[in-house]
């Protein structure tokens, strides 16, 4: 799973499908569903967060308007969100998918996202733990001072 998420789209492929997308837009004023999907598929595999966000926006629109390809769009919505560490959104899409269809490919993405988000939470706790220690230390000093004052 990690390999899939770390894999980055070759720049020339991204550019090719981007060109196709803009070309259709200029020529016909609208872009075909296939071209939109191809472009979004490249965008969510980009190295750059902004590209991934753009891909997610296109996929969201596709998922809303085109029920026939929905399983593909929802999978790549989960995938794109996972790549920008939007784990909550990613999990939402996985669960929505799994409610409709039992699928090992989606289940392993879900497990991966869960593991990553647990890791983030653990990191958050470590920081909180650090803060607790610091604050605890300050409190202890204050209390020691208080005690001394009282002794006086």
């Amino acid at each position, binding site marked *: *799973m990690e*390999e*899939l998420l770390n894999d980055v*789209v070759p720049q020339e492929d991204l550019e090719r*499908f981007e060109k196709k997308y803009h070309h259709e837009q200029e020529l016909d004023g609208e872009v075909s569903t*296939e071209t939109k999907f191809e472009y979004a*598929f490249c965008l969510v595999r980009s190295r750059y967060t902004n590209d991934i966000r753009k891909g997610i926006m296109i996929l969201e629109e596709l998922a809303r308007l085109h029920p026939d390809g929905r399983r*593909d769009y929802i999978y790549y919505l989960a995938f794109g969100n996972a790549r920008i560490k939007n784990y909550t959104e990613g999990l939402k899409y996985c669960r929505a998918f799994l409610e409709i269809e039992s699928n090992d490919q989606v289940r392993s993405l879900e497990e991966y996202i869960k593991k990553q988000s647990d890791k983030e939470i653990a990191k958050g706790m470590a920081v909180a733990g650090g803060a607790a220690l610091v604050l605890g230390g300050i409190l202890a000093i204050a209390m020691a001072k208080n005690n001394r004052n009282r002794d006086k």
Partner: protein
Amino acid sequence: MTAAPYNYNYIFKYIIIGDMGVGKSCLLHQFTEKKFMANCPHTIGVEFGTRIIEVDDKKIKLQIWDTAGQERFRAVTRSYYRGAAGALMVYDITRRSTYNHLSSWLTDTRNLTNPSTVIFLIGNKSDLESTREVTYEEAKEFADENGLMFLEASAMTGQNVEEAFLETARKIYQNIQEGRLDLNASESGVQHRPSQPSRTSLSSEATNVKDQCSC
């Protein structure tokens, strides 16, 4: 961080291609998990699997990209061909149309990979003899004409599945040994990993430092 010694000497990149439903994902699953999936949904985009094998006492990590055969993924999955050391091209012996499309799959493979990429043709579902639509002889002739390795296999029974993946690796390894594959080329699909990296270089660095200190 210290570089942990790799538990393999090489990485080979494989792709699996072919029409939808021919059994690409089942072949991969049989190879990595030794299990058959009877109700396997269509792959979305691409799936990934890995296994470490041994060729000639060398440990080789296979990184396998299993592409979706559905038409709408055809254009975008072409990115994955690049830098593949091995391509497993699969058709279904019980569906003639999947065999007829091979020349188009082969054209893509030749256009998008290196001349040294090993292409292995697999006629899958060999367990379904009674509904066969493509004979062994016919496919063998196609393979020979195009310089492909070839086996009929069954992801269901496991017959010839190991063989197909392993023989591809042996052929790639042989190409390396005979200098037909340039390890330094970025798209060879092969990475070499010294099994004990940095160990020796670290200790020699350490002695260098000591030498400098003592003067």
